[in-house]
Every structure is written in structure tokens, then in C-alpha cells.
């Protein structure tokens, strides 16, 4: 049995076991959930360690079990360089989210069952190599998200937020389902297996006209799921209303599904359809970066601000994907991993802050660095990471995105680099100033600064991940780069985008092999 199958089965088995457990013993549920997610994290770290970098382009830890033979559907898991980092990030975020679930006091059993289900869905989505399971695993999280926001959410708008995220993501998933079915037909209705589909698409590309009909469906579906501007309005609202663990898991890990899907499904399978849309995607990415960034600047509440900033960060990833170059895609994947940790960290910290202050209105907060040195420092670091300061994981990713996206689209890249980073600095530093500096209202003199060291652990791990990735991006980049090059190859084969220009990126990563050919 592949290590990935074990990672996937663990939460599901725990779910089944806990469902039978009497709901009185509350501590049990949290303990088991934390334990299970920790084991997942250890196993995923082991997998990432054992991952054979020299064969990062091919899938490893593969397991394939026929599921519905008559439709060519099989349970097929495996990771390549692109997904191994995502799986690892997802387990880390899951563990952090499970640790943050101590804020849940009511209906503890139901919450942890839903959290485990969501956890299985997130991991399955990144580990699946079969379109059908890829889709199903992502959808597993839809209902838990709805229930968690509705039952344990905060604020008067939680019901509205729960419906909005469910309907919006439901729409995205249905559009996506049509797109995936169309891909299945393009490939001759024989298999849902992504590996076989990709091989088929490489050897004999599907008719261009049909690819052009299918790609918009995939782009719209994945775009909605990844909060592509202007389909992003669900995200800040829902994350603001969600309980902390849900916001961490959703914003950190689950939202990367749409981006991962673009890289794993849309670009490799329908590259000819994708090419025409890449410039559109680049400009929409600017919508994320600038529009949502500016909206974040104007937010009055910390969680909304973080929500909009997390939508804005999607812009870097979309820009990297839209570049269609190996360098840009590598950067996008690095930002995906980094932003997963960053989003979980920010939402975890703001969730703890909310527990202490019962409000996240920036005008009412202030001076919290004094009673809460640990939380304050962590929040400052998160905000610095959010504005792309070197030393944090976002920096190398964003840099690679800019390098990769410059040759095909200098204008968009220049705007993104010049404007978006400034806007990012404005909202991030504004959050720090409003919440942490200035006079401290009397009400929060005695705010609890995560006095229990165990509660600090998830934040320490997430920060360590961010800083580690920021200082030593090499191991991750080495894993992603061959896979990214394989994705970019069919896109670059067209005459339109210029060949890669060797840039100072060489300092961070080896130049793509294609460039030397």
C-alpha cells in the first residue's frame, strides 16, 4: 500500500471510529484529530524526504485500484514534484487547523468529524491521479464547510456566508464537472486516469477547435474555486465568518485545488485551448492583485483584510500560470505552498485574537503587541511575508513568477511587480499598525498570549515552514521544476511566446533544461 493511500485512509478510518464514539468525551475527539493529522504530517514529510528528485517528473508512491472499470475510473494516487509539496503543505495546515480547534466548545464531536472529512478531501484532491476522484475529493469539503460556517461561525452574516460559499463553489464545481466530462470525451471516453490522459494529449493532441471550447469551462470552474477575480467575492466573506480551523484549512489548502487543477488538468490536457486564454488570465490576475489588494487596504476588520489579501495573493499564482513558462509555473507552485502556510498562519492568529477580544474591528484594536508579544510577533512576521519580504516563502515564489512572466508579458509583470507589491505593503503594514501598535485599550490589558506552549506549536511550525522555504527554497524548487517544465513544454512549443531568457533566477534555481537546448 502506498504511503499516500495510508495518509488518505487515516482520516477516513478515524472518522468512522469517532462516529461511533459517545459524544460526551469531548477531549477524545480533539486528541484523536490532532494525533491523526500529526501522523499524516509525519508520513507526508517522510514521503517528501524519500521523493526521488531525479525523477520528479514522474509519479511516485503510486497506487492504482480499479473502481468503476466500465467507465475507466480507478482509485489512483501518486505525487510528482508539483504535488508532493502541496500534499506536505496540506498536512501541515491540517495539523495546525486541528490544533486550533480548541476554540470549539459546542457540538465538539460533529465538528471534528467534519474536520476529518474535510481533511481527507483536501489531501485526496492533491494526491489523486484520476479525474473522477480528484473531483470527488474536492467536493467532500463542500458540505463540511457549509455546516461549519453555519453552526460554529461568527458574526451575524454567517448564514449568508455559508450559503454564498456553498452556492458559489457549487457553481464552480458544476461548471468544472462539465469541463472534466468534456475532457473525458475528447480523449475517447476510455479513461479518467490523468496520467493516461496526459500521455494521450502529448502524443496526439486533441483537435484545436474542441480544446478551445473546453478550456473556458475549465478556466471558469477552477477559477471560481480559486477565487479568480471577478469570481472572488465568496472568499473574504466566508473566511471572515468561518471558525478558525475551517478558515485555515480552506484558505490555506483547499483553495489551492483550483490552481493545482489548472496546472494538473487544464494546461497539460488542453494546451492549445489554453494558449489563447493566457493573456486574459494574466489581466484577470492583475484584477486579483490590484483590485482585491486595494479593497484589502480599505477593510475595517482584520479577518476581512486577511481574506482579501489572500485573494490578492492568488494573483501572483495566476500570473505565474499565465506566463506559460517553466520558470513562471515553478514560481506559481512555490507561492501555492508558501501561501498555504501563510494563509493558515494569518487566519489562525486572527482567530486567536478574536477569541481574546471578541472583535476584529481595526479601529477598536490597538497596542496588542504589549500583552501578546508572541501573537503580535507572529502576526508581524505573517504580514511581512504577505508583502513579499525576502526571507519568507512567498518571496522566492513571487520572484520566480516575475522572472517567468516578464518575457511573454512585460507590461502586466511590470504593473504587478511595481503596484501590487506596494499595495500589499500598504495593507499589511496598516494591519500591523492598527492592531498591534498604538495605545492599548484597557479591556485587553490581560489578553492571553497563547500561554499554553502547545497552542503555540502550530504557529511555530507554520512560521518555521515559511522561513525555511524563504531561506532554502532549493529543495522545493528542485522538485517542482521538472514537473513545471513538462507542463510548460506544450505551451512553449507554439511560436507565440518568446524563448526563455536566462535571468538572475539562476541564483535561485537551475535554468530550465529547455533553455539550453
Amino acid at each position, binding site marked *: 500500500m502506498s504511503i499516500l493511500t495510508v495518509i488518505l485512509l487515516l482520516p477516513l478510518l478515524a472518522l468512522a471510529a469517532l462516529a461511533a464514539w459517545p459524544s460526551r468525551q469531548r477531549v477524545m475527539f480533539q486528541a484523536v484529530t490532532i494525533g491523526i493529522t500529526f501522523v499524516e504530517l509525519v508520513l507526508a514529510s517522510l514521503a517528501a524526504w524519500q521523493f526521488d528528485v531525479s525523477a520528479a517528473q514522474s509519479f511516485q508512491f503510486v497506487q492504482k485500484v480499479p473502481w*468503476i472499470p466500465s467507465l475507466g475510473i480507478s482509485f489512483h494516487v501518486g505525487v510528482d514534484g508539483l504535488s508532493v509539496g502541496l500534499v506536505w503543505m496540506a498536512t501541515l495546515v491540517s495539523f495546525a487547523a486541528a490544533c486550533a480547534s480548541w476554540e470549539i466548545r459546542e457540538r465538539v464531536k460533529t465538528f471534528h468529524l467534519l474536520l476529518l472529512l474535510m481533511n481527507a478531501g483536501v489531501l485526496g484532491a492533491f494526491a489523486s491521479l484520476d479525474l473522477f476522484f480528484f473531483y470527488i475529493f474536492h467536493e467532500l469539503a463542500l458540505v463540511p464547510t457549509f455546516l461549519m460556517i453555519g453552526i460554529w461561525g461568527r458574526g451575524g452574516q454567517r448564514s449568508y456566508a455559508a450559503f454564498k460559499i456553498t452556492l458559489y463553489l*457549487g457553481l464552480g464545481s458544476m461548471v468544472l464537472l462539465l469541463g472534466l466530462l468534456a475532457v473525458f470525451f475528447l480523449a475517447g471516453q476510455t479513461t479518467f486516469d490523468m496520467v493516461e490522459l496526459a500521455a494521450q494529449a502529448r502524443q496526439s493532441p486533441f483537435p484545436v477547435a474542441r480544446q478551445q471550447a473546453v478550456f473556458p469551462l475549465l478556466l471558469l470552474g477552477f477559477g471560481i474555486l480559486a477565487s479568480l477575480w471577478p469570481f472572488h467575492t465568496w472568499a473574504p466573506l466566508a473566511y471572515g465568518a468561518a471558525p478558525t480551523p475551517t478558515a485555515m484549512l480552506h484558505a490555506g489548502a483547499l483553495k489551492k485545488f483550483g490552481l493545482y487543477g489548472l496546472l494538473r488538468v487544464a494546461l497539460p490536457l488542453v494546451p492549445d485551448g489554453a494558449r489563447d486564454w493566457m493573456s486574459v488570465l494574466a489581466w484577470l490576475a492583475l484584477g486579483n492583485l490590484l483590485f482585491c489588494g486595494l479593497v484589502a487596504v480599505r477593510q475595517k476588520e482584520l479577518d476581512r483584510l486577511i481574506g482579501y489579501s489572500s485573494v490578492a495573493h492568488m494573483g501572483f499564482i495566476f500570473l505565474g500560470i499565465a506566463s506559460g513558462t517553466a520558470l513562471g509555473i515553478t514560481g506559481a507552485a512555490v507561492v501555492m505552498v508558501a501561501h498555504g502556510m501563510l494563509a493558515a498562519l494569518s487566519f489562525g492568529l486572527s482567530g486567536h485574537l478574536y477569541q481574546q477580544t471578541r472583535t476584529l474591528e481595526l479601529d477598536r484594536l490597538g497596542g496588542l503587541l504589549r500583552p501578546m508579544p508572541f501573537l503580535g510577533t507572529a502576526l508581524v512576521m505573517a504580514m511581512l511575508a504577505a508583502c513579499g519580504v525576502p526571507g519568507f516563502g512567498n518571496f522566492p515564489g513571487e520572484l520566480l513568477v516575475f522572472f517567468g512572466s516578464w518575457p511573454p508579458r512585460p507590461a502586466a509583470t511590470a504593473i504587478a511587480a511595481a503596484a501590487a507589491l506596494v499595495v500589499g505593503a500598504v495593507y499589511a503594514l496598516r494591519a500591523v499598525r492598527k492592531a498591534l501598535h498604538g495605545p492599548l485599550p484597557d479591556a485587553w490589558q490581560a489578553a492571553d498570549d497563547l500561554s499554553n506552549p502547545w497552542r503555540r506549536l502550530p504557529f511555530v511550525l507554520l512560521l518555521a515552514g515559511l522561513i525555511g522555504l524563504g531561506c532554502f527554497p532549493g529543495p522545493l524548487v528542485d522538485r517542482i521544476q521538472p514537473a513545471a517544465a513538462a507542463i510548460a513544454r506544450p505551451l512553449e512549443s507554439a511560436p507565440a511566446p518568446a524563448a526563455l531568457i536566462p535571468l538572475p533566477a539562476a541564483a535561485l534555481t537551475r535554468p530550465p533544461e529547455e533553455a539550453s537546448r
Partner: protein
Amino acid sequence: MNAILTMPEMAVTALALGLLVLDLWTPADRKGDLGIAAIGGLALILAGSFLFGAGAPQYAFGGMYVLDGMALFFKRLMLGVGVVALAAALEYSKRFAAGTAEYCALILLAVSGMMWAASANHWALLFVSVELMTVTFYVLVSFERTRMPSLEAGVKYLILGALASAFLVYGVALVFGGTGTLGFAGDSGPGLGTGSVLVRVGLALVLAGLGFKIGMVPCQFWAPDVYQGAPAPTAALLAAGSKAAGFALLLRVLLEAAPDWALEMRPVLMLIAGASILYGNLCAIPQRNLKRLLGYSSIAHAGYMLLGIVVLERAGAAAILFYLAGYACAVLAAFLVAALAFDPGEPEEIPALAGLHRRSPYLAAALALSMISLAGIPPLVGFFGKFLLLKGVVLAAFDSRSFGWLAGVALAGIVTSFYYYFGVVRAIYWSAPAAERPPIAVSRVAGAALGACLVGIVAAGVFPSPLLEAARLAAGALRIP
């Protein structure tokens, strides 16, 4: 003569009659045992139906009656539906002043009508089986004689049902006039051409009559009123059984008896499918009554299933069979909860479900799962059914733009349905109850029946392969020329 083939139907009918006779000698406080006996008998017949292999089609009564894979699939489905409906009836009939055994016997007769319908290969048997069902349902719908909504629903069903039967029999007469034969196709007679105007008009009338059974636009007006007013077990049987019987007949008529006409009428059928999906889903949005909501949603589900018919292929028929089985599980569970969670005489208002998760976690989870399955969210069976239906439409969309529009309409309908299905889930899990209400005790029989539905919803969603293979095998028995 091959009358042995009709054993299952005969046995169900005999069980119903036996129940009525035994009722005469049963003291009032032991009537419940009769219901248990009926459930046991029906379950035995269901088990016995597996003695019939799905081999080559076999005929009885000079080709009027056919036993093929599809007929068997439908019979097993209807027997299963009957068992669960009887369990619901046993629970629900506690609120009747008298008549438990009659109610159960009528359900059995309705099931037997559906089973005959599954084997109809002849216009006369089609009509007779539809009438056996419909007439029984007149009584079943208005069985709560002391409750006005039930009587009102009964009258509505009677009038509109009679109208539909009139359409049906008139259509059959015209078809007979045009072709000179009452047999459908296959070994007993030639398939219908699209030749004469008489036949075309006749088939259109037949479509209207069967459309009433499945609740498709424009023959859907009865559904919300009747679902709301009828006793919950009756509504469950209407939704899960009667609809399935309608689809069994529709598949036979459109794909076996009159394929040329169906091809010609394809644009109309597509229009009907799209209109049903939109009408059902949009009208369900403002509903406050759970059973009425299920009535509107049943129209939408009829529309989804018509997607499997308009592609006019075996794969589409298989998708319908799979969908029907999944729909039956979900809708039976929903009506079972509706029968258990509300007090006698209380209207089934959705806001009254608030606090259900505390009154009975089991019922709450069951209703939530059923709603989520109806909404078509993986990994439940409702999703896989929609997946199969949409698969056929997307394939056809590559060749014809109108199928692309149909897929778009289906998508809009499905997303719309999320709103009201999740509205029920919200009511269960986090709406604040108006007043604290006592916990609900679920009897063992009802609990087991509900459990069976839930197992079906989850198991057939996670491991769809066995049910899918059965559906494909059954659809393979369709004699599509």
C-alpha cells in the same frame, strides 16, 4: 402460456388480498403484526425475485407481458420501495383511527401495479397496470379522511389522474387505429413507424398520460399539492415507485415501441426536460413545507432523468435506472423522516425541523444525507446519477449546440437546487427552535428501513460499480432497433 413468469406480481397481489382477509380475524391491538407480516412477505418476494435470471427476454400472455433484464431491475426496485413504504406506513398508521391493514394492502396493490407496468409489452397491459396504480393511489392519497389537506389532495389527484388516464386511453386508441395492433415491438409486433398522423397524435397523448405519472412539465401541476397533502408513506410511494413505473413505461414506449417518433420529437423532449428542471427548481425555492418542497423537487428530478431519455441511447437508459434507484433511496428517507419528525396533524413546515439534531441525531443525519444526495453532492448516490446523466448530454453537446444549452440549463437547475436543499440542512442544524420539543423515539422497524435507505445512499455513491453494472445490464435488455 408462461404464466409462471408473473409469479412475483401474483404473489404481491395475493399478499394484499390475504392481508385483507386476515384483517377480518385480527383484533384491533394486533393490527400492527399484519403490517410486519406484509413487510416480511414483500421482502421474501424481493429475495425470490433473484431466482429469475436476467437472460433472454421471456414472454407471457401471447407477448403482452415481457420479463427481461429491465423488467427485473424495475421489479426489484419497486419491491424494495414497497418494503420501505410499508415500514413508513406501519409507523404512520398509528395516527389513523382504523385501517392499518387496508392501507398496507393498498400499498401492496400499488406495488403490484408498478410491477405489471415494468413488464408491459402491450398497450392494453400498459393501460391496465397504470390504472391499477392510479386507482389505488386515489385511495392512498386521501386515506386520512379526517384531515382536509389529505382529502383535497385526493380530489386533485382523482381529477387530474382521470384526465391523464383519458389522454392515455385515447392515445392508445389512436395508435391502435393507426397500426391495427396493440403489441409494442420485438417478437410480438412491428415497431411503430412515424407514418400516419393518427399514430403521431396518439403517441403524443400517451406521452401526456405518462408524463403525468413522472410529473414532467406540462403535466406536473398535481405534484406539489398531492405530495403535500398525501400521507407521508403515500407520497414516498408516489415519488419513488410511481415515478419509476412511469419511467419504465416511457423507456419502453419511446425507445422500444416508437423510436422513430422519439427521434422526431427529440427537440420537444429536450424542451420538456429543460422546462421541468427549471420549473421544479425555481418553484421549490420559496417553499416552507418539506413535502411540498419534495413535490417541486420531484418535478426537477423528472427533468434530470429525461436527460437520459433525450440522448436516445442505452447509456442514457442505464443512467436513468441508476438515478431512479438513488432517487428512491434519498426520497424514501426524506419522507420517512417527514413521517416521524412531525406530530400528527402538524403541517410539515421546514422551520419546525429546527432542533431536530437534538431531538433525534439519527433522523437529523438521515434527512441531511438525503437532501445532500438529492442535491447531487459527492460521494453520495445522487451525485453519481447526475454524473451519468450529464455525461450523455455533454457527449451529445459536441455534435449539437442545443445539447450544450440543455447542459447549461441542467447546471443552472442543479446549482439552484443547492439553495433549497441546504436550506433544509440549515433548519436541521442551526436554526433556533421556537420551543424546546421532546426527543423523538424511532421504532425499530422505521429505524431499520431508514438505515437501509442511508446505506443505499452512501454505499451506492462510494461504490457505484455493482448498481451501475446492474443498470447497464438492464438497459442492455432494451430492444432498441
